[in-house]
């Protein structure tokens, strides 16, 4: 874990959030370094949003240490919030105002002058590719446009630290890719990004480092590449058998790969060399209906660490 408390933008030790008898975040430790893109990965209910709300200084810490920008959120909430950019999971745009007014008034909340708000609003409209819609009401905008506006709004105070809670949930692929590209630009400029997601491709695209959360705890930590190396093999071979055949394969799959996982509809074989696994399977006389050899992804890591069963 890098960094001393002083050099970290966020420093958490034993961070805990309780709601009555329910523990949403159970004593987690992490540090976020300046300029880093840091992700919280986990299924719904893992405690990601509760963690983000504590970092955003809108939800008090129940126990443990939390320092943000070297300040204590319980004492300096508004001072910390003045230097954060927050993109919440649910849009909080003002539908009674226009696109541009949403940016201007948000800048006013940070105590910026009207002229400065206007200047930054126009700049950010450009950044969010919303200049043409600047005088439209917010309501008829598409989901992707609203998210871009929310991100632009979070940038009005030129934050040192951006908190993004599921920034692309519910968006179509085009809108997601455009958002990723904009977020990547922010990262290039040196803005520290902290995001939660349950999209593995998003985490792989954006995060330098991430932690996987499950049931209120951190279960793994590292770069996407490190996590794959630690918790999965280089490649995965997916074999799909005709209906009814898979159940008859007792004993025939074992030893083909480092790890064998049987799903209801297919078998996953984790190995360094996927093609070799296919060859070995054929040599044993197995006749899968379809064969797919692919690189391991974070999704494999995620499912291994947090399980395949639904949480809800």
């Amino acid at each position: 874990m890098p960094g001393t408390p002083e050099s970290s933008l966020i420093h958490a030790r034993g961070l805990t959030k309780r709601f009555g008898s329910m523990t949403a975040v159970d004593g987690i430790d992490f540090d976020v370094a300046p300029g880093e893109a840091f992700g919280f990965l986990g299924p719904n209910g893992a405690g990601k949003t509760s963690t983000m709300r504590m970092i955003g200084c809108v939800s008090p810490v129940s126990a443990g240490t939390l320092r943000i920008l070297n300040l204590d959120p319980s004492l300096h909430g508004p001072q910390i919030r003045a230097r954060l950019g927050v993109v919440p999971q649910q849009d909080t745009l003002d539908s009674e105002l226009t696109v541009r007014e949403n940016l201007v008034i948000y800048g006013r909340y940070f105590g910026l002058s009207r002229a400065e708000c206007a200047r930054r609003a126009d700049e950010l409209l450009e950044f969010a590719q919303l200049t043409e819609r600047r005088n439209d009401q917010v309501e008829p905008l598409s989901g992707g446009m609203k998210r871009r506006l929310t991100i632009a709004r979070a940038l009005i105070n030129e934050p040192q630290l951006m908190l993004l809670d599921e920034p692309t949930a519910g968006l179509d692929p085009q809108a997601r890719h455009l958002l990723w590209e904009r977020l990547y630009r922010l990262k290039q400029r040196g803005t520290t990004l902290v995001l939660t997601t349950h999209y593995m491709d998003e985490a792989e695209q954006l995060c330098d480092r991430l932690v996987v959360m499950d049931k209120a705890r951190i279960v793994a930590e590292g770069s996407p590449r490190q996590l794959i190396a630690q918790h999965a093999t280089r490649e995965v071979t997916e074999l799909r058998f005709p209906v009814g055949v898979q159940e008859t394969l007792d004993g025939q799959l074992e030893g083909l790969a480092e790890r064998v996982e049987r799903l209801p509809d297919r078998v996953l074989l984790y190995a360094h060399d996927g093609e070799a696994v296919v060859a070995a399977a054929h040599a044993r006389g197995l006749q899968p209906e379809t064969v797919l050899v692919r690189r391991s992804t974070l999704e494999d890591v995620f499912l291994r660490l947090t399980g395949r069963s639904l949480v809800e």
Partner: protein
Amino acid sequence: MARVVEHRAMQYRRTFRASLFSSFLSPLMFLGAMGIGLGTYVDRSGNDLLGGISYLAFLAPGLLAATVMQSAAFEATFPIVGGLTWSRTFHAMYAAPIRPRDIALGNLAWIAVRVTLIAIVFTAVMTVVGAASSPLVVFAIPAAVLTGMAFAAPIAAFSATQRTMEKFSAIFRFGITPLFLFSGTFFPIESLPAFLQPVAWISPLYHGVALTRGLALGTAAAEPLAMVVHVVVLCAIVVGGTVATAITVERRLVRG
């Protein structure tokens, strides 16, 4: 807090047209229909229950207080629930360096601004039609605003605990409307059955109407103690309601 008021003013610039009728025209229509139309008959009946003044002069200040009450009460419902639950704009403010108590106070301050405008227009019309007989009528404006806030503050505190509008129709149906009718706006509460009169006394609107009327008619100078009591009662409700609003708004924002 000023930033929160600025936000509401920005919204108002976009939406005020929709509220012109209910805020300004509708109360003036009441004044015309009841005060002048019905008033002509009341005045002709020749009894002296109103103490020698025209029904219009009696009704107008009561209607001023009651109108402001209605607008203030309404403004303390939808916009508060909306900011916390629908558009969630209060959460957006809280994510910026604005404190929950500033969000609560800013919204109440905005309601005060809104109803002050209504009170000014109404009082000006009242004066023009000859329904104000004392220069003290100028102070009827803050008196009416105080009355409005005595409703807005506690209602806002309640609104911040609600996630739907379900319970509000009951507040208006069983609270605001009966008060509007039976707090001395349209007739002196002395005309109510004796057992109902104490009920009228605990109504904040009764104190608001009495205060506003005393100032508009200039009778306030003759009974300063009663006026002070009205002001103290209304102020106490405003302070209590404001503290409660700060607490309930903060609780909701922290919960998420």
